């Protein structure tokens, strides 16, 4: 078990290394080769070639590419000191994990991410609670009442939310509850620690948007898994033993039917932790997704690279957690 986890962690580090290599290549090497040096982003309008050369030197862009990459990786692991503040020589510290300084905010990328992450975390946790409880609940009930009223009603629910584009749903919610009924104030994110009530008000529509959209998908998956499990031989055995139906469903059927859902949920949550781009944009929630959307038009390369690597980290770690959990649930899965 411990050996397995260690091996998986080493694998994760390898994956993250490759992700860093690719992002670094995409954003720092290719632009220089095609003549669109990131140095232009630091300089003002109509920069002189000398100024560009100066900045490139400061950013280390004139060094050999492997050395540049080494500096970048070293920054992430051990921190580094940047030589430039963007316009002239000068040094500023960048403690580990250092993804460089944002062009736009002039502060270390890691600090910005740390600052924004609680927003995305709040969105993810709330939405996951909704989609797991609603999705699994609806799926289980409709599987047990196959063909009945509850099943048909849940099919309508599933179809509605699977076919309703989330951008339309989000804007509709905003229009009805904020501008129409005025039940909610125009969104203004407040940390949970400051005012739980205002925090809730700011997030509820985002939770509903993501939660119900995913709940539809989870309901369908759960229903299919439950139906399949309920027709398994071991369920028949459980009934033949004389167990009450409640025990058959809860202890025997649901445990087997929900295990695959665990895998998908783990990955979905990890994906969302990297930033709920669309929802954060619509509801103006300053999380990682919004940070990403804002960084792209400004060509804030260090932020884009930092976010890419951090989101990959979430996915890789979630994969490990899911696999370990799976082996705890299903004794046939051996970790070795």
């Amino acid at each position, binding site marked *: 078990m411990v050996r397995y986890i260690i091996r998986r962690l080493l694998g994760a580090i390898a994956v993250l290394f490759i992700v860093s290599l690719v992002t670094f290549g995409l954003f720092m090497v290719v632009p220089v080769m095609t003549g669109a040096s990131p140095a232009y982003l630091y300089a003002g309008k109509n920069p002189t070639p000398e100024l560009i050369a100066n900045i490139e030197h400061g950013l280390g862009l004139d060094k050999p590419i492997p050395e540049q990459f080494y500096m970048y990786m070293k920054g992430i692991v051990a921190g580094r000191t940047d030589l430039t503040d963007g316009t002239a020589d000068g040094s500023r510290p960048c403690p580990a994990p250092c993804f460089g300084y944002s062009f736009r905010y002039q502060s270390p990328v890691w600090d910005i991410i740390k600052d924004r992450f609680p927003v995305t975390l709040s969105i993810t946790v709330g939405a996951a609670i909704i989609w797991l409880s609603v999705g699994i609940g609806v799926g289980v009930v409709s599987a047990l009442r196959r063909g009945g009223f509850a099943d048909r009603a849940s099919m309508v629910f599933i179809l509605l939310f699977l076919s309703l584009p989330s951008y339309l749903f989000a804007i509709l919610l905003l229009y009805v509850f904020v501008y129409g009924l005025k039940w909610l104030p125009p969104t203004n994110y407040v940390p949970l620690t400051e005012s739980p009530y205002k925090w809730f008000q700011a997030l509820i529509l985002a939770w509903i948007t993501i939660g119900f959209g995913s709940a539809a998908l989870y309901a369908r998956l759960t229903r299919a898994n439950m139906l399949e499990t309920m027709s398994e031989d071991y369920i028949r055995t459980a009934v033949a033993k004389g167990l009450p139906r409640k025990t058959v469903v809860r202890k025997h059927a649901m445990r087997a039917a929900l295990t695959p859902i665990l895998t998908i949920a783990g990955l979905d949550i990890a994906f969302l932790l990297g930033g709920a781009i669309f929802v954060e944009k619509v509801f103006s929630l300053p999380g990682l997704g919004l940070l990403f959307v804002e960084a792209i038009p400004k060509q804030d390369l260090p932020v884009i690279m930092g976010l890419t690597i951090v989101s990959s980290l979430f996915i890789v770690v979630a994969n490990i957690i899911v696999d370990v959990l799976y082996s705890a649930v299903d*004794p046939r899965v051996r970790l070795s």
Partner: protein
Amino acid sequence: MTQTIDASASVPSGPPTSFLEVRDLRVAFPTDDGLVKSVDGLSFKVERGKTMGIVGESGSGKSVTSQAILGLHNSTRAQVSGQIWLDGEELVGKSSEEIRPLRGNKMAMIFQDPLSSLHPFYTIGDQIVEAYRVHNKVSKDVAKKRAVEMLDRVGIPNAGKRVDDYPHQFSGGMRQRVMIAMALVCDPQLLIADEPTTALDVTVQAQILDLMRDLQKEFNSAIILITHDLGVVAEIADDVTVMYGGRAVEQGSVRDLFYSPQMPYTWGLLASMPRLDRDRKGRLDPIPGNPPSLINLPNGCVFSPRCVYRDRVGAACVTDRPDLTPVSDTHRVRCHIPAEQSQRIWLDELKPNL
């Protein structure tokens, strides 16, 4: 035992005389293509301490019958009628919740494929303990002791340790022993074994059959053994019901069935059984054709399209459905061939070649 059982008028009424009496059992499943009549007017009796073998091809209604006795059919998808009397109690009219206290307690079932019939996520100990505790108010420790005792009884070596293993950690034969231990944990008076040895290799088969026989002696339980293997029937059963197309086509004692079978389908089953104790005279004779569709049963005798003897009787085979008629006190046959003629066919044409 002398009444015909096809015509509902002759279905016995009044209180049952046997431990288990199935009377005119019918199980049908409505589908988009029509009504699938899986079991159509089946009757039989089993006493305690006796074994009834039910033989037939896939789709002949064997398993559907056994599941009807335990009330395992989904009431929304299956239509069950007739009577099933277990120890004086009629089961067909009861709701699932009313039958539940009997399941696993008074009557228990051993299923065909022990790997898929055991829950992969729970240890076999947990699963046996669960089966015991649902009918007996005892603590987990007591139930676990009982589980170990049962595993030991069915011949699982090192039962005290293996009780905490998962089903996938056992071999096929050991898994079937686990199933048997689980079925017997509440000392059921009726044990239904649905092809208990089909998934096992021959040496293990013999062990499992021995085990079932020993346990039957010990607990004096009635056993219904469902199989398509006549060898197994010869080994363990007292009485046999041969099923075809959802009906009994021949019923009798093991002696009747093996020494004077009267129905061409039974002949076909006997001829397709490999024998090692005789000289090999050639290839086995399979029954030609396939089992009938249970939605559109053939006119006349259900077996007639595959029967090589139907020309010897005339048109009745394809126009009239034969009744299950007694040929002796214990032996009943559903066939248009007159008893003397079929006896001659068996003795002169078939028996020498088997």
